[in-house]
């Protein structure tokens, strides 16, 4: 059986045109996906059963789902400062339960944006976000800027489907309708496909953004001969290209959020785009990583008022990134238990932060053996959302789409496990109050 119009549960592009062949309840072929999406849908070796161990250096022993769930609930109910992290590789339905569990245990809920586009949220708090949908950008954009992002490697079909090569209603010649500019610290595969590559010194994007703002505002006389390693002449040329756009779009990534300046880079990039709007129509959008990391921001915002790093210990939602983000909490050694689900803190946090996880009980909900599994005391395998489970996900531009189920498996869903943990936590807390 060939299932058409399958959505890809890997990156924020959420490509929705895949064709997956299923024979005897097994995926045997994935068409139209990129290499990463195909790899994800084809699947990898699974954790076969729940596992527990007291000593993180010891071997796991297989246990029942009930035992793993009850022990997880005990750890969370009895901890004073649990961190519930991940949430990006799941569907919105499980995220809602995650917020509820966090509230029940008075913990902190944080998602993978913490080490990805968390600073973008802060930049947006400062300046707002003149943005749109990928469909609008595909149809209209005649100047496309990639700043500190490398879609050829991280979002392989982005340039084909949405941003560069696709033919749009107005940009009807595809690649020939668009001027592509890449700002990066190294000549990436994306830069190799651009019309203009602007090489910025590492950590000096903020200055280059400021120089472009000055030139766009016709105050180029204050710009020095070189800014951030870029000759003024080149900056003037690129600023003219951007100003000359009928519809300009800036896609940005970790090159801005993770380097010096962090959220201030986003603040400045949004300001540049806002000022460009005096000359044409311009938009800006973060290149979101996990397929439903955007969905977590939506769910968390409608449940708590904030997009991530929400501390429920006061009995009401409290948000102060820099204080309530996972790495701040771990580095201050505040956390006394960690619940890692649909994200891999073990593989994507600095070693010093992970070392704190080595000292506290860790519960890991994941279909696959991750680096967080290595740090865990309890491991509970669940369904792979978007392959074995349907549900809602938000594309990087905030468009909600319905993920499809392709095969049936016996594993429980994240939501089912969370429901059981919540019920058990309520039982433990009820008995002690």
């Amino acid at each position, binding site marked *: 059986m060939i299932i058409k119009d399958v959505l890809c549960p*890997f*990156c924020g592009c959420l490509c929705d045109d895949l064709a997956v062949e299923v024979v005897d309840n097994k995926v045997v072929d994935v068409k139209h996906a*990129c*290499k*990463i999406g195909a*790899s*994800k849908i084809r*699947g*990898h070796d699974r954790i076969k059963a729940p596992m527990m161990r007291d000593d*993180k*250096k010891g071997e796991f022993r297989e246990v029942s789902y009930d035992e793993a769930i009850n022990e997880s609930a005990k750890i969370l109910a009895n901890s004073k400062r649990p961190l519930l992290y991940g949430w990006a590789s799941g569907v919105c339905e499980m995220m809602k339960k995650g917020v509820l569990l966090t509230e029940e245990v008075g913990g902190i809920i944080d998602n993978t944006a913490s*080490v990805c586009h*968390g*600073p973008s949220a802060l930049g947006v708090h400062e300046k707002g976000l003149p943005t749109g949908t990928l469909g609008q950008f595909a149809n209209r954009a005649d100047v496309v800027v990639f700043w500190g992002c*490398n879609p050829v*490697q*991280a979002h392989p079909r982005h340039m084909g489907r949405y941003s560069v090569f696709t033919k749009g209603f107005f940009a009807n010649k595809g690649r020939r309708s668009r001027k592509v500019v890449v700002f990066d*610290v*190294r*000549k*990436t*595969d994306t*830069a*190799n496909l651009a019309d203009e590559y602007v*090489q910025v010194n*590492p*950590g000096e994007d903020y200055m280059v953004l400021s120089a472009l703002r000055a030139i766009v505002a016709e105050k180029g006389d204050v710009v020095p001969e070189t800014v951030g390693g870029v000759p003024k002449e080149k900056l003037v040329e690129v600023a003219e290209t951007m100003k000359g756009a009928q519809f300009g779009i800036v896609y940005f990534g*970790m090159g801005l*959020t*993770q*380097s010096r300046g*962090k*959220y201030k880079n986003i603040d400045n990039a949004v300001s540049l785009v806002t000022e460009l709007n005096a000359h044409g129509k311009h938009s800006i959008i973060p290149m979101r990583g996990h397929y439903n990391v955007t969905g977590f921001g939506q769910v968390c915002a409608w449940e708590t008022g904030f997009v991530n*790093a929400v501390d429920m210990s006061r009995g009401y939602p409290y948000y102060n*990134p*820099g204080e*309530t*983000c996972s*790495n*701040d909490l771990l*580095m201050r050694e505040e956390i006394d238990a960690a619940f890692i689900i649909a994200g*891999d803190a*073990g*593989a*994507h*946090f*600095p*070693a*010093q*932060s*992970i*070392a704190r996880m*080595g000292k506290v009980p860790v519960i890991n909900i994941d*279909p*696959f*053996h*991750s*680096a967080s599994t*290595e*740090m865990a005391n309890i491991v509970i395998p669940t369904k792979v959302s978007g392959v074995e489970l349907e549900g809602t996900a938000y594309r990087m531009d905030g468009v909600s789409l319905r993920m499809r189920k392709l095969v049936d498996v016996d594993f429980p869903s994240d939501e089912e496990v969370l429901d059981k943990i919540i019920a058990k936590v309520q039982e433990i807390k009820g008995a002690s109050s």
Partner: protein
Amino acid sequence: MELKVTFISGRTVDQGCNLENKTSKAYFEAAGYCEMNSADAGRISVEPGNNVKVATDFGSVVVPLKICEGNPDGLIFIPMGPWANAVVDPNTSGCGMPGFKGIPAVVEPSSEEALTMKQLMARLK
């Protein structure tokens, strides 16, 4: 023989393909390496496949070398993952985000073996 460089981490297609396959050799090969241009490699006399030790104020890691001519002089790249995490800056500057890019580092040839994901995680518990 050592070289002062700036370190960045980031995604790659192969790292992405093995995100749910982290105990495999494929993930080790996809995320456990260091890229620099051939001029920089020449400066410390290392060939592709030779191990190098990357050290920052926050830790060190040994990984094999790959050449990428897109990197300007003095810029090294390790794909995001446990190998990069050994040397990234945990300081969030008050905004939640650690420093995964733009970290001063020193790179030198190494005769040590590169550690697997499991071995790296074992150092942290």
